[in-house]
């Protein structure tokens, strides 16, 4: 997949969602790094699938 194929709108949605969950986790400490990596993977898959 080329860089040009990336849908900016989807990328922004992903970015905001990940940033949000990172901010939430900084405050609640709910998830460890491993879980955070999984959650981010899920966010990326969710948005990229919708493409």
């Amino acid at each position, binding site marked *: *997949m*080329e*860089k040009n*194929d*990336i849908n900016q709108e*989807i*990328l922004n949605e*992903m*970015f905001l969602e*990940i*940033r*949000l969950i*990172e*901010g*939430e*986790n*900084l*405050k*609640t*400490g*709910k998830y460890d*790094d*491993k879980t*955070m*990596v999984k959650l*981010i*993977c899920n966010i*990326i*898959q969710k*948005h*990229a*699938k919708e*493409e």
Partner: protein
Amino acid sequence: MKFVKLKMFNFMRYKGENEISFSCDDEKKVTVVLGDNTVGKTTLAQAFRWALYGELINTQYDDSKKLSILNTEVLGDMSANDHCYVEVELILHNPVVKSGMFEYKIVRKALFARKFPQLVAVQQSERLKMYVTDLETGAMEPYDNEGIGGKNKGKVDELISELLPKNLSSYFLFDGERWSDDKKTKTDIKDSIYNLVGISPIREMKHHLGEIGSQGKLSVIKQLKSKITGSGDDYLRIDNDIKKYYKKIEDEENNIFDAKENEKNFQEKADKIRQFLDSNPHVEDDQKEYNRLKKEIASNENRMKTYYADIVTNFSNSHSFFAATLLRDIIDMLKDVELEGIDIPGVTDKTIYYLLEQHKCLCGHEVNENSLEKETLIKLLNVVPPAVIGTEVGNFQEKVSKWEHDGADLYTAVLEKAHLYQDENYDMIENEENLEKKEKKIDKKINFAQERMKMNSYYNQARDESEKARKSQLNIDDYKERIDNLEAKKETLDEKNETNKKLKRYIAYAEELYRSAERIYQSKEGSLLSELNEIIERNYREMFNEQEKVTRLGEDYVLRLFYKRVSNSNGYADLEASGLSEGEKIARNFAFIVSILELANMKKQEGDEIAQSLPLVLDGPFSKLSSVNTSKIAKVLPSVSEQVIIFMLDKDWEPSGLAKYTDKKFVYRTSKEVDGNSSTICPEV
């Protein structure tokens, strides 16, 4: 973020349980505790610090190491081996984006024993716990700083550090009366500011996307990459293999074609010869007979040579044959000789004479004159040669008989060989005649035997070619089977490729997200300092009506005060002020904390949901400021902070003008008991 309640038990000046609730109203956001000097205002600030960080404010007039958090009166009431605990509970509410409001209950508890009879408290243990409750769902998560079941050790400290960074505690837990410059590291202050203005989540995002683990091994990007099955070359490799097998099949098919052509050719050639041979059956027989005769004649010649040689050999031993007549005459003549065998074999008259001369017999007896031995020996002279030669003649007769017999065999032998020789000669002559006849009859141009050999060779070659074709066909079957297997693999790979394709898309997004996060992080990092300094300068100017001085955060994240645009050898430049008064330090730090909070608020208003605002807890902030400055600063506080908790002297209350931001029920007074050392806190109304 807002503090909801502070509950103390036997903490420093406050004996037993004392609690204070804080205003969480958005308009009337100030909570004030009034009280004279030394009645426990600072103890409240200490309770915040101890609950959050497990330490006390490093005051100028106290040696904090000697400070005991156990209430002195309680300590005084303790006997030997008595134990008593101190506990501070701090509750705060913090909205978490998209997850609603969360309550954080921080409980720090320390167990003490008295070093009896001295009035000294010895701390036995300390525990820190936190209970995080989702206020919407009621779900509560407990954390113990020592870890629960081996997990989450130090987690409470981590969470507190994210909520209320200790490095900024000197600012939001502002101790105006006993301000001292903490030696904070650039990284600590920087990280704390990043938390407040919402850069930290981007840093974390960057971390999780591409940096976590050794060389980012545990990161999102690497994790996604690890899910890709096989390399992208697998498909190509299988495809190439299939093509290769198709090519092999093609080659084998050509081989089969060639082999069949060859087989046909060899078969045709062989058949042709066979046909020729079959159509001339006698020629081949005649040729065979001709060759046989030639061989037979050669054999005849060889045998004749042998017979001739045998005859020659016989003649070379023929002397006895030719002497036979003469020998017969000799035998006749010897018939008259005395041949009675009375002589002694091997003894002659010479033997006897020798013994007589020696005077000794063969048996060892002495032979003397006139002895019997001599007489006997002389008698023996009559029976030994030459007087008697019977033995010699007998031997000779035997020899002659043998010669006679041998001569008789020679004749027979020579005759026999002569006959054989003659017969052989006849045979040879006959063979030569037959050969001559055959020679005339046969066609010598074509060698039929050779033709037959050639035919057989062609048949063999035809069979070989047929075998080649069969093997090639087997190879083709094998290649076809291999192709089927590869096609099946390709099909599986096609499915995998579909997954890989998806994964590659996710990776592309993850990598782009990482690049974006890095770009934003760097740009925010770069602009943050100048943005913050602009606000600090404005606040300092407005809060203190200051025109000549300016305060600024350096690249090293150290807050400094400068004289504005002083002329020097290079023209005009800001000159760092040194030897600051306590008032100037307070003003500078006030400007700083207010500015950080303002920046965080600005970010929030700009839509940055991650940026967080902190409550301000101020202990005697105005005690060293003029009433004019007090009014100016106090006016700013409610606008930059979500919540203001302020402990102050009565004298500063009115000039501060904070009454209009304060609900009366959140005005408290702390006072000391008349006949004791402990304080109590109660609402003013």
